[in-house]
């Protein structure tokens, strides 16, 4: 059996590899193989997989990449992610991708898709408008049409057009992956000392750079390792980290929050992995099932329209109750419009419900964590000593 440390080391290696060696190795294993990159937050990876391509999550270079060219493309008041992604591309690190998907997260991602079309005319580029209306006749029909179009076009790029059977198979695989992630989140919620967030994050992040089949194998191995090496329980406060769904925090920030005396029992990290909160049906028409799955089972997030006027204000209470959390840490990337615009409503709702909150901003290349440590540490102490936890 592989040890917990062995799996975490494997994941860390993929996370730190800005040359995407694992994806390049997969491409080299068979003639004519192709890879498709996708940006946060949600991309229908089943469609990419069914088209015979490797889906590769592109999250920027974090704190391991110096931005030289990327800054020329974006103003200083734009978040760090797009300039980092451009830097990866302009330095040839993304030259193994035959296609790029840009899901509708914000205007910046939309602009980035336009830049890609201009800079890389040989790469298939698609800006994915996600349905914002939860009505089958409008939103459902629209998204189904988008998925069918994407299937056709990716099939043309890969030379291996998907059919219903291959798509159903891909959906089943991603159902398994999502199920494992849900189980890992449940394990962390129940016994957070057994699944440190740093490890869970690395596992999920690595999973976005390898075939889904490999991720499933590693996730199962990790769960077995957790049972064999459960870790030691500590007296810490239970917190939810909200707002880090697109540009990812540096790993040091995640470590800092837990080291400072918190157990993260729910979060938004790499949210695309859990965007559908239940299995997608593999019966009947798989495209319709995938579209319907998104329409009915997309999680509440800042990139989706919230029809209920009280929905945002109630969301933190619901999540805190579900995770049995003591408080909420709002951690959003600097200049992230979706996260920061929502923060005011989410925080107002949380505070109205008496939920302790703190808030800070980060960038994916933040290198100094003392201020986060101070905030998270005093926050944890205040909940343990003066709160109900």
């Amino acid at each position: 059996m592989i040890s917990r440390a062995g799996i975490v080391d494997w994941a860390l290696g993929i996370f730190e590899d800005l040359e995407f060696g694992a994806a390049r190795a997969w491409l080299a294993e068979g003639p004519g193989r192709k890879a498709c990159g996708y940006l946060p937050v949600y991309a229908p990876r089943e469609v990419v997989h069914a088209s015979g391509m490797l889906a590769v999550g592109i999250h920027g270079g974090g704190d391991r990449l110096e931005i030289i060219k990327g800054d020329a493309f974006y103003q200083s008041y734009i978040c760090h992610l797009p300039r980092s992604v451009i830097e990866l591309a302009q330095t040839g690190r993304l030259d193994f991708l035959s296609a790029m998907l840009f899901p509708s997260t914000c205007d910046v991602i939309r602009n980035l898709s336009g830049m890609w079309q201009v800079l890389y005319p040989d790469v298939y580029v698609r800006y994915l408008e996600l349905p914002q209306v939860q009505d089958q006749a409008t939103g459902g029909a629209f998204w189904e049409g988008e998925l069918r179009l994407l299937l056709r076009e990716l099939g043309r790029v890969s030379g291996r057009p998907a059919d219903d059977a291959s798509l159903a198979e891909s959906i089943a695989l991603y159902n398994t992956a999502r199920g494992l992630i849900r189980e890992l989140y449940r394990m962390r919620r129940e016994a957070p000392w057994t699944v440190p967030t740093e490890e869970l994050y690395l596992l999920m992040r690595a999973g976005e750079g390898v075939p889904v089949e490999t991720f499933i194998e590693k996730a199962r191995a990790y769960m077995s390792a957790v049972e064999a090496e459960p870790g030691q329980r500590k007296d810490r406060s239970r917190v939810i980290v909200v707002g880090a769904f697109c540009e990812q925090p540096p790993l040091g920030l995640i470590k800092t929050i837990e080291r400072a005396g918190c157990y993260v029992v729910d979060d938004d990290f790499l949210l695309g992995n859990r965007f559908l909160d239940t299995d997608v049906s593999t019966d009947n028409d798989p495209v319709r099932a995938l579209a319907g799955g998104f329409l009915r089972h997309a999680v509440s997030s800042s990139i989706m329209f919230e029809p209920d006027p009280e929905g945002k204000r109630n969301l933190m209470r619901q999540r805190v109750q579900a995770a049995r959390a003591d408080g909420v840490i709002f951690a959003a990337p600097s200049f992230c419009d979706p996260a920061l615009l929502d923060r005011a409503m989410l925080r107002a709702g949380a505070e109205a419900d008496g939920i302790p909150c703190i808030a800070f901003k980060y960038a994916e290349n933040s290198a100094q964590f003392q201020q986060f440590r101070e905030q998270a540490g005093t926050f944890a102490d205040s909940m343990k000593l003066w709160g109900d936890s």
Partner: protein
Amino acid sequence: MKTVTAGIDVGSGAVKAVVMRSDENGAEILSHASSRIRKRDISSVVNEVFEQAAAESGADRIEYVASTGEGEDIPFATGHFYGMTTHARGALFLEPRARGVLDVGALHARAVAMDARGRVLTYKMTSQCASGSGQFLENIARYLGVSQAEIGPLSLEGKKPEIVSSICAVLAETDVINMVSRGISTSDILRGIHMSMAGRFARLLRSLEIDQVVFVSGGPAGDVGLLAALREALGKGTPEKPAAELELVSHPMSIHAGAIGAALWGAYRYHKLGTGGVAWTATVKI
């Protein structure tokens, strides 16, 4: 019910540990130990100091081991508390009248305002520069060839203190080298350094508007020269803020204030978790 808990304060210069016994009537220190880290592996220093304190406590079990300072990664700790939280609680234990703490560490100093329960109300830290810290004072003493124990008494003898840079440790060290070459006496140099540090600390305390008893914690808390300079600096006041009626208090156990606070908060948590039916905290057998 008596509860035995331990506090381990990992500072940037030294590791301190205490073992305490507490019940509803109060708490007592059973044992304490400390050791300079120097260039040793921190985890081995932590183990050494904790084992010494545990062995000398006479207790056969410890219900809650609380870490503080840089001790987040101590594997056998039950929980961790932030430094300000523990120094406030430790100060209150050593001086119940204290409503403020000036914690002078090896690399930083911080002022904390607290209430009668030890709850931190607000705080301020010196910036990242090591000037105005214990390590800086120790370096200067080494350059001047005096022991740490001599620093305070020598400083008190200073008659014509030389002003040093109060911002930058590097510039301050250059100042000291120049003073030595100009033949300034060791006493006057040390007094000048203490005055420089005291000026920074006084500004920290004034900015928090603490106007009662302030407890001085950390290694340099026993430095009589520093305390004298601080009393003088606080007595001067500024045009905007006249001298406050501040009483500075130190204690022979000041260096252990963080560890004491951690042990006391550990006892509090032990009972709080226990009353909730979650008495899961690992007991450390000695």
